[in-house]
């Protein structure tokens, strides 16, 4: 489990990239849900945390493949391979990503 950021640091509509191997992107949707996925687009090497968040989808900033944050599945070309998803946990105002080994990132 890694510490991503505090809830205050991630307002709705925003995302953060947590460096590491693999790098992880955490999103806070306008609807208030938190999702974490692999940050690197499976098409090339864009950072999905830099992408455009729309509902529970993120659009890759390079070639506009869309990924469903709930499942990691791409919904259109040019990406064909899903990104990994990770459970997110909030404890005492801090956002954690589960299922990844690693140091606290903050």
């Amino acid at each position, binding site marked *: 489990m890694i510490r991503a950021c505090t809830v205050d640091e991630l307002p709705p509509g925003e995302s953060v990239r947590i460096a590491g191997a693999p790098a992880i992107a955490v999103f806070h949707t306008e609807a208030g849900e938190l999702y974490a996925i692999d940050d690197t687009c499976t098409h090339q090497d*864009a950072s999905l945390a*830099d*992408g*455009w968040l729309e509902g529970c989808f993120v659009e890759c*900033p*390079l*070639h506009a493949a869309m990924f469903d944050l709930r499942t990691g599945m791409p919904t259109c*070309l040019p990406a064909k391979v899903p990104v990994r998803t990770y459970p997110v946990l909030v404890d005492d105002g801090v956002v954690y990503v589960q299922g990844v080994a690693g140091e606290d990132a903050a």
Partner: protein
Amino acid sequence: MKRVAVVGASLAGVRAAQELRAQGYDGGIVLIGEERHLPYDRPPLSKAFLAGTASPASLELLDAGDLASLALDFRLGVRATALEPSNRRVLLSDGGSVHADGVVIATGGRARTLPGFEGAFVLRTLDDAVALRAALVPGVRVVVVGAGFIGAEVASTCRSLGLDVVVVEALPAPLAPVLGPELAAVCARLHRDHGTDLRCGVAVAGMSEAGVHLADGSLIPADVVVTGVGMAPATDWLAGSGLPVGNGVHTDAGLATSLPAVVAVGDVARYHADGAGRRHEHWTNASEQAPVAVANLLAGRTTRTYEPSGYVWSDQYSGTLQLAGHPRPDDTLSFVDGDPASSSFVATFQRDGATVGVFALNNAKLFNRLRRQALRRPAAV
């Protein structure tokens, strides 16, 4: 509609087939493609694939699941030779034909060649890329004719392979008619910063074993010559069909041709909007046109019109270039972040007080934000 023939089995054809299914069409789809390969993606051909870091399999546009769910009737390695509207038939080079109630024209284009450059490499297809890659052995001297997107990408990849590269360009600066003088200078800088010998304002005369001969009589020695001088829409097979085909298949603003139940998509489609004919040669255009053309095909009339996002990317050397909108070279450029000398910047094109384009070098996040905010409405061209 019981059967649709999609002619051209590349990006636009695949996207059209996907859209047919997504929009509820459950009849037959015949996908006719001249190349013998399953549909593949072209952008990596000048980048990772040419560099040897991407496999042919990674280029495939459809995986096994897509192939199963789309249920396409493939005719690969076969060229459409004619469209017979009165018989609702597409004739094929193997002597066969396909009867279809609807036709999607997605034949893209072929690399243009230059007179006097017989034997030069071009780069449009997977087979072209395999041949060029095989020629890029250590120590060869490469001359690229044309500094447009593909020429620049080939030069960049050749440099990454450690080869000596000269790029000759007829214009005073690369891509100046698209990007304007200031950004053209940035593109020229990318070449020079990475050791490519870029020579602009140069007219070529031809090539020989020795290399590339210039109009002034001089010679640039070369072992490998690549011409990157654009493409020509593949419309030859439509002769006699009754369709107007000057510089692409002419369509209305909804990508419907003058023949009932025939639409065109992708690089080959020249659609008419606001009195002008427009054709784009970019990935996103082919992808974005498919839903519009297919909706109109299924509706049997033009219910939707196409609004291009004008989105283009190119990877050259250490840079990812991104452009959106419909700028003209004489628009005013303003730098929103960074400046032309930096390794990352974002600039907007202004005309009559409105933002008509956004350009970024290595700054995808801000580019996309501006592209959405500033270009919310398609620019009047």
